[in-house]
């Protein structure tokens, strides 16, 4: 069993590194194109450097992003063991099974049924669950759900989605800044030089890319998000050695349509899609979560 999961996780990690590399490259190339488009040859070097700086800062923000802001956004309160001893024990047991430090645990007061995880690395991790869900699940189901969330931490899914989000934001920011600077300067360097056409072309390509890049990477990122949900389910079973717990919990989750406030940044880290109407998940290109029935079916197939 461990080898198969390891292969899945390794493939995941490769794809993620590749996608991040592509994003960073986009950032640098767009920077160079926009810089060149506005200021000719000298602009290319400056644009390149600018793109690299934006990429670097985005990565740093994504890597070291904090837990507290996301938690307070959702009205989550951190608990100590005395507040919810069974929940605490369940999470602690899973941390031992995974050889991880025990994450911080938060509770959200709402009837909606959901749980999410955050934290760019296992030692900065936190998990949250709604009071609604906590009341509805038995111990095995709770362990399945928490194992799924802890697996997102363990598989570094959170770090990946934070990096993608900040890089995409960086690209948009880059193009906005450069375009604004370009409009102000009025492109006065273009007159009379052969480079004029080349510059316009570079500028146009740069603009088109900066519009397309977020869209393309968004589609890829969503497809990967769906894959990562399956992987998190499988990793949860690797931890608990009990597919039934999670399958049963997912079954309970599939019926609920109670609305809840959530941050779009954390959408893919919830166990089921928090958007009302999308709870069931789908194979749609723009869906962050795969269909729940398919997730349950794959878990049932693991039952021996």
């Amino acid at each position, binding site marked *: 069993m*461990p*080898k198969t999961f390891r292969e899945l996780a390794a493939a995941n990690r490769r794809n993620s590194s590749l996608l991040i590399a592509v994003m960073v490259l986009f950032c640098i190339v767009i920077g160079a194109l926009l810089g060149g488009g506005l200021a000719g040859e000298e602009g290319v070097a400056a644009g390149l450097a600018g793109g690299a700086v934006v990429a670097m800062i985005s990565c740093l923000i994504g890597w070291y992003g904090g837990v507290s802001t996301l938690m307070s956004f959702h009205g989550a309160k951190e608990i100590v063991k005395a507040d919810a*001893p*069974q929940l605490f*024990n369940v999470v*602690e*047991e*899973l941390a*031992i*099974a*995974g*050889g991880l430090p025990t994450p911080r645990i938060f509770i959200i007061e709402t009837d909606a049924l959901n749980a999410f995880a955050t934290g760019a690395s296992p030692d900065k991790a936190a998990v949250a669950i709604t009071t609604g869900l906590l009341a509805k699940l038995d111990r095995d189901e709770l362990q399945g759900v928490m194992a799924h969330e802890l697996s997102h931490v363990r598989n570094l899914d959170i770090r990946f989605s934070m990096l993608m989000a900040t890089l995409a934001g960086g690209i948009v920011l880059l193009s906005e800044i450069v375009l604004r600077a370009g409009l102000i300067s009025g492109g006065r360097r273009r007159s009379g030089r052969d480079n004029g056409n080349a510059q316009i072309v570079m500028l146009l390509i740069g603009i088109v890319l900066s519009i397309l890049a977020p869209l393309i990477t968004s589609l890829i990122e969503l497809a990967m998000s769906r894959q990562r949900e399956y992987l998190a389910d499988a990793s949860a079973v690797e931890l608990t*050695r009990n597919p039934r717990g999670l399958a049963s919990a997912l079954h309970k989750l599939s019926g609920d349509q109670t609305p809840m406030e959530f941050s779009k940044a954390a959408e893919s880290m919830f166990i089921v899609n928090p958007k009302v109407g999308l709870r069931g998940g789908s194979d749609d290109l723009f869906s962050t979560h795969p269909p729940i029935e398919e997730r349950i079916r794959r878990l049932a197939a693991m039952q021996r």
Partner: protein
Amino acid sequence: MPVGIILIAAAVVIVFFAIAIYNKLVRSRKEVDNAWSQIDVQLKRRYDLIPNLVESVKGYAAHESGVFERVTKARSEAMTARGSDARIAAENQLGGALRGLMVQLEAYPELKANTNFLQLQEELSSTENKISFARQYYNDTVTNYNTAIALFPANIFAGIFHFSSVELWRIEDSAERNAPKVSF
């Protein structure tokens, strides 16, 4: 001349390779040791919980003195056991005695209404889970390590550096495989 350079380059590559493999194996071995000590931590937790448990239920279940004694005796035997085989056997014994006790106590409705007891029951059950997850993690790290030293080409270097395989934690005591017997 060129042949000499190629040979030197090849040697350098091999050395770097060897270092990378050695470090990976060391890390893997350390994780195994870490996992073993984690089991120890959980076993000690169990020792600490037991006196509390026994004290809180003695009042309710006075007739069960035989079971309490068995648990207390098994506990002290486990704490003083030396050598891993003896230790494993003693711990399995303690686990069995505890399970037997908890099953017996199911028959006392007053206990189920006592929140103190319920908390202790959750703590004990969680501790048993933690011991079992710690063993699971230990076996996972051992499997990783044993696989790492068996794969080619790492196995060549594993032999040179004297990395040998580690035993998995198996259920030693056949008694543990059996469900606890309830005796009234």
